[in-house]
């Protein structure tokens, strides 16, 4: 199983999306990269699109039958409740109680923040629990969807482009006669 996971991870790390992420991270100061990689930033900011693409690619791999067993080893969700000694993570119809100190160690202990918990069973009586900071991908801040209707009722373009668009549009290139049934 470990070898299969490593192979799948290596394949993802060779993907164009991952290489793109590395290229963009390389443009930042090391301290900022360390903060992002360590989870100090709760949202992906300008990286939200590339990280979302990477997450989608990872999800496809994770859902493969050969990795089905992994599903019981991790839980990803949002913090729904905070107590003195623990936080409750809700996600995918499941709840996890996570020691507050673990959540604190990865900068996630406020309601609504994303947190992942990985359970590594040692034997029937022992388990290693590891917390990992989740990154917010559903925020509108910094995110972009080519399918969203633009705010303000117009797609923003530069002044130079608008000047170009004030010209005469070339006739549409219709090459096959089409009848559309309504």
């Amino acid at each position, binding site marked *: 199983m470990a070898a299969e996971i490593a192979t799948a991870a290596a394949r993802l790390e060779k993907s164009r999306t991952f290489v793109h992420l590395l290229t963009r991270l390389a443009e930042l100061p090391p301290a900022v990269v360390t903060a992002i990689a360590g989870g100090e930033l709760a949202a992906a900011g300008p990286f939200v699109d590339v990280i979302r693409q990477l997450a989608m690619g990872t999800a496809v791999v994770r859902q493969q039958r050969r990795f089905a067993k992994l599903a019981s080893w991790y839980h990803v969700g949002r913090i729904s409740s905070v107590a003195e000694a623990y936080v409750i993570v809700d996600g995918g119809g499941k709840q996890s109680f996570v020691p507050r100190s673990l959540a604190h160690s990865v900068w996630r202990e406020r309601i609504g923040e994303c947190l992942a918990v990985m359970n590594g069973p040692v034997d029937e009586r022992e388990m290693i629990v590891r917390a990992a900071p989740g990154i917010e991908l559903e925020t509108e801040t910094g995110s972009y969807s080519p399918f969203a209707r633009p705010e303000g009722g117009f*797609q923003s373009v530069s002044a130079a482009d608008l000047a170009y668009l004030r010209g005469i549009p070339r006739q549409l290139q219709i090459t096959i006669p089409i009848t559309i049934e309504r």
Partner: protein
Amino acid sequence: MTSPTWQVRVATEKDRALLTRFRCANKEPWEREVEFQIQKRLLDWALAEGAAADDPTVLLVFDVPSRALVGVAAHERQFLGTNALDRVPATKIHLAAISNKWQGKKFSNGDQVSHVLMNAVLTDIATRVPPRDPRVFAIVHEHNTRSRALCKRFGLVKELQRVNPSYLILVTEHHPVK
């Protein structure tokens, strides 16, 4: 000229289940984005209250012999501008997708599937009542080479300044006013 072996019609609420089953994505993230939109969002996008002002339309292309849903495309009225007052009317091709089984294929009468789909969109825009501006644009992922080639073939050749680093805005060619 052989008679068409395809059919194009406007989607309605009754097509929701059909669209849910539509598969067009392989491994690329931008393909999955489009598939997700078609399966989960497209009819709500077109039929939502308040959307009518943008005149959104979803077109479905079928193979007549097999009755298979081959392609899906959508478009709507939008504006391009620098602000709400300084803008020009346009039509956005919201999406265009061909089912996995039909990608790169021809209908039995020889028509290329992608060409029928694009012609359907452009015909619908051109014959719209009230008329739509022939200024047509699409937003395409920069690595989506097939869609970029298809846009170019159908006249969306001018690239505008990007609003997102990963996506191109491609628009029909314009000639300066003399």
